[in-house]
């Protein structure tokens, strides 16, 4: 009997050495969930993309890539989502950094900065159309102030979509960055200060590296949100031209032409491009220190 227990124990031991033990069961629910509700439908969708009505398994992909108008949606989308994600994350960092300490009104300010999250695409779109439109308050103010003669065109083009993505994406990024930042032990910055590091150096050399994993995640999520922009690209953009993003192409294929294989193919391309960007970011992240930042220890 002892020998038997021995063998069992040893196996458990060996597995534990490689990082496999009962704690991995915690992954169970999430895995089960994704496996049952996502994997099958997803592979079904992928499979569909290889089954166009004619032209062999890759026809849907070929037709996407051989058509400059469709292919162009990729650059259009990247041209929109990369700057937006960079701006959202980039702007969140200094603001969140300023908001670490305790000061009066911090709670209010945080809430205010987070509130735009609740606006939703529709209100944002309506608001942008109203506010930035040719006779909206913004242009009225500019004209009344004599800054411009003609109303600026800020809607139904790139900028309209850009602003809407900033309004919906910034609070999102800010909320995450602020929370990640709060997990870093302020003593580390103090230590850096006694070593002669000014705030810029402290930020660059201490805070930023410790924040980087969080920033990478935040960037990925904001990027994904911006990359899959759809309603605002239609509502405040120029859906046939400047802001014909890839999801419009997918929508067009799926819901107007009822060509599901092509829609799936476009969606798969979309996912792959996102994946490439994210892989780059996460790859960079994995080079960084990840671990306790002393904050909660």
């Amino acid at each position, binding site marked *: 009997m002892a020998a038997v227990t021995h063998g069992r124990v040893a196996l458990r031991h060996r597995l534990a050495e490689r990082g496999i033990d009962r704690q991995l069961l915690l992954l169970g629910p999430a895995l089960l969930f994704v496996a049952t509700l996502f994997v099958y439908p997803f592979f079904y969708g992928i499979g569909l993309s290889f089954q166009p009505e004619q032209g062999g398994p890759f026809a849907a992909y070929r037709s996407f890539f051989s058509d400059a108008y469709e292919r162009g949606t990729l650059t259009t989308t990247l041209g929109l989502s990369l700057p937006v994600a960079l701006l959202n994350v980039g702007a969140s960092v200094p603001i969140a950094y300023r908001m670490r300490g305790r000061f009066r009104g911090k709670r209010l300010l945080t809430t205010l900065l987070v509130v735009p999250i609740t606006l939703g695409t529709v209100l944002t779109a309506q608001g942008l159309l109203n506010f930035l439109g040719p006779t909206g308050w913004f242009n009225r103010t500019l004209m009344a102030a004599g800054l411009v003669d003609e109303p600026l065109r800020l809607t139904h083009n790139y900028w309209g979509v850009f602003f809407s993505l900033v309004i919906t994406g910034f609070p999102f990024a800010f909320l995450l960055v602020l929370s990640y930042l709060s997990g870093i032990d302020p003593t580390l910055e103090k*230590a850096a200060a*006694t*070593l*002669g*590091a000014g705030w810029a150096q402290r930020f660059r*050399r201490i805070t930023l*590296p410790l924040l980087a994993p969080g920033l990478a995640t935040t960037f990925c999520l904001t990027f994904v949100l911006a990359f899959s922009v759809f309603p605002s690209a239609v509502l405040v953009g120029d859906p046939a031209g400047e802001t014909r993003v890839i999801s419009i192409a997918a929508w067009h294929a799926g819901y107007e032409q009822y060509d599901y294989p092509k829609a799936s193919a476009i969606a798969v391309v979309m996912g792959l491009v996102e994946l490439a960007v994210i892989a780059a970011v996460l790859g960079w992240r994995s080079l960084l220190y990840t671990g306790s*930042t002393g904050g909660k220890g």
Partner: protein
Amino acid sequence: MTFKQLRLEGVTRRFGGHDALVDLDLTIERGEFIALLGPSGCGKSTALNCLAGLLPLTAGRIWQDDTRLDTLLPEKRGFGMVFQNYALFPHLTVAKNVAFGLQMRRLPSAEIRRRTDEAIALVHLEEQARKLPGQLSGGQQQRVAIARAVVLEPSLVLMDEPLSNLDAKLRLEMRTEIRRLHQALGLTTVYVTHDQEEALSMADRLVVLRNGRVQQVGTPEQLHTQPANRHVADFMGFRNLLPMTVTARTGDEVRVEGGGLALTGTAVGAVRDGDAVVAGVRPESLRLAEDGFPATVEVVEYQGREVAVEVVTDAGQRLHLRTADRPAPGDQVRLGVDPAALLVFPQGDA
């Protein structure tokens, strides 16, 4: 960068309603080695943090010669600090942690390398130089913190219990190194320690704090032999503190009685006939003496060359002594004490 004098005037720091440091006045001359000493929670770290600029003062000023320091940002003061909890940068290797301050000064990289290597060698961490702090033992982390602070050769070094996690041997060695650096580089050092022996052996002057208030400032010898009050005495190793009553005073010599004992000691401060007092004596000043008072050995603790003995007098008073003899529990002994080694303090002083 260097200065002649650092003056703390009424430095005070409150946390909420709690006075962590009250009205600290202290002048530190350039080149001095000052030790801050006191029981846990008495405000030592608070004082260091105030000096470093990491905690804003609730009241008071700090002057560096004629410039006011307490309004200056910590990074502008040019001090070095060893934090009690190390505060190592978790994402940088040992070598990079140590090099950090030098890089901030934009020194040439060859010099950075050289000085970093030296500092790492100083604390015997050559083998760990490429590890991250999370991969070090407690004592190794503490040594990184020391190296990180001294590598800068700052005009003032603040050290908060820098040796608390080191073994006796390394501790002795590091003590010597720290003193040596202090002297060789002409540094000024403020050193927090809970270890009176360390304080006595390293510092030029000691500052004893209690409940945020200074109790006594003086040289090691002054503190050791003339503690200003019973609290300092208590802290400086007068482990036997007996409540007694003065029966006679002649000059500094007083006769005290209480707990079935009648002893002769030396008065410290205003002690008058009939006063309730506290008489203090170190364990090592209590001798086994044929002509002394009787007591029974209760506990004997091995401490190497000597043993620590706990005895109870016939009246139930518990006393501690150290001796090279080896009494056994249950033995009847007789104890004596030199009048010079028995200090008599007024009871109620703060």
